[in-house]
């Protein structure tokens, strides 16, 4: 599909997009894909190892991705496919972008649907009853708690529980420039969701429950115990995905390799 906006003209002193070296363009595609998260795991599709191939043309790119199993959830697969396409279409040197899911039970439907810009409900008409936004929201909440847990763990160990819980959103922003990379990363990741979840003002408390209530020192231990289990569940699940994906590569089942791929997808 052609992008609606035309490529910006290179300005004086800038680099014309058609002269960007191939390696840099590939790196830009990877960087764009780095922003696409598996919504269930809250980890980038790149570090999870889902990207099988990036085929760059003159002004086009085709992303081939493969999930840990043939039976991975269609809804997450669809979200990742459409997010990937959006991410690479933002690149100035890309005019057409396509995404190809392979070796998956819903590959054909998802690939055709994303190509046509259809929504999940239209692709799986009569099959999926749950609103995809509801699923996205459910996992956004889990990611929010998981990211909060990581940051609380780091900060409580450094400045204590009371000082941590007294932090405001403004303090959180400052924290995203912390001298330690671990803290910086965790704060940035948490802030990205705290900002959206509460539409929070600078004076609002940094650490809140899903209901938006500030976490109080008295309830801290119980709160941490709960959100720690949220983070642990997601982390274990991500490990399971890595295990499956590694095995799918190292010990392919006869008849399930690339040479057996069906053009239109396995659900045809």
């Amino acid at each position, binding site marked *: 599909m052609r992008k609606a906006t035309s490529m910006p003209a290179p300005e004086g002193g800038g680099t014309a997009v058609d002269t960007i070296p191939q390696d840099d363009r590939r790196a830009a595609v990877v960087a764009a894909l780095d922003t696409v998260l598996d919504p269930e795991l809250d980890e980038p599709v790149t570090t999870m190892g889902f990207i099988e191939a990036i085929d760059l043309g003159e002004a086009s790119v085709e992303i081939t991705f493969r999930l840990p199993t043939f039976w991975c959830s269609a809804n997450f697969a669809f979200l990742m496919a459409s997010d990937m396409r959006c991410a690479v279409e933002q690149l100035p040197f890309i005019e057409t972008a396509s995404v190809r899911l392979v070796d998956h039970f819903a590959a054909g439907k998802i690939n055709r649907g994303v190509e046509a810009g259809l929504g999940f409900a239209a692709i799986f008409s009569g099959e999926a009853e749950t609103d995809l936004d509801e699923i996205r929201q459910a996992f956004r909440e889990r990611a929010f708690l998981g990211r909060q847990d990581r940051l609380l763990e780091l900060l409580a160990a450094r400045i204590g529980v009371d000082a941590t819980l007294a932090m405001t959103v403004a303090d959180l922003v400052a924290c995203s420039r912390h001298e330690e990379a671990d803290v910086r990363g965790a704060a940035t990741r948490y802030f990205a969701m705290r900002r959206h979840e509460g539409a929070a003002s600078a004076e609002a408390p940094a650490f809140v*429950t*899903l209901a938006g*209530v500030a976490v109080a020192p008295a309830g801290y231990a119980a709160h941490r115990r709960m959100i720690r289990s949220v983070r642990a569940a997601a982390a274990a699940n991500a490990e399971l995905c890595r295990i499956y994906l590694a*095995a799918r590569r190292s010990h392919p*089942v006869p008849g399930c390799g690339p040479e057996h791929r069906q053009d239109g997808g396995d659900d045809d």
Partner: protein
Amino acid sequence: MYVTPQGDRVFVVDGHIHLWDARPQNRRNRYGLTFIESFWGSHVGMTPPDERWAFDRFCHYGVEGAAKDLFDDGYVDVAVMLPTDLREFYVDGFNTTDQCAALKAAHPDKVVLNGRFDPRDGPRGLERLEADHAKYRFKGVKLYTAEWNGASKGYTLRDDIVAPYMEKCIALGIKNIHVHKGPTIHPLNLDAFDVRDVDYVATAFPALNFVVDHCGMPRIDDFCWIAGQEPNVFGGLALIPSFIHARPKYFGEMLSDLLFFLGPDRLIFGSDYGITSPKWIVEKFMAYEFPDDLAREAGTVLTLEVKRKILGLNAARLYDLAVPPECAPLRPAGDKEQTSRAQGDVDARA
């Protein structure tokens, strides 16, 4: 029976056993191939390299293979079989009650054979359950809420069609309801991941025990939250102990959460055989100790008594199995201590 280096005997009930047939001649379609491919990935990734099978054996290990892996090599005293029909993928089914019955016939004293039903089958399904029960005398059944059935892409335990089946189970004396809440096929709807329907049905039918197989993974946290509040909900561990070789850290974290929220009396060991085998899992589990931080998080250390409960005594209670006296814990099992410590002031979900 597992015997520790100190001579302590541990009664082992493997609460999650299959006897499947995924050979090419039984595959109905490409799904039959890709389904066993997914299981194979788990086998390869979780199993220590020197314990891995060849793919052909993985497709079909048969009654003799299972008996060797479980009873000769795997320390298993009693195997609880959980059927999976999957007739849409496999000509004669994947792991049906009838297929599983072959292991029961060969080792009647070592096998608990569970049945299955699908409430969407209506009165016909009730009749089939009755007929199956007359033949096999079930103490438990296995349900797959995310399974497709005709036009339906899954159901929840809240649905009105479920209650007549639960009432039928009570009437027949079937008291253990295993519910698959874990990685699943054709997962399209949010309901496929949801464990909250267990809460509803467990409250509605306090006379029944609900074993949530795979502990809701990947939603263990949701499961912990629900199970902590329902004394008749149990954690069927299958898949979680399988992490113990490849990812011991994550195994420890999951187990510490489960122990904290459910306590030691409601966790049921399962090797998920033949995805993974009990031999190396039981050995590694018996050797496993929590690091200090996880023991703190769990609220308990993994004493011999806790390990005995998880590996066999809890399942023995559910299935009325006779436990040899030398395998019994020093103190009586804490039936009255089944409530969790974690409820009440936890407000993360508020």
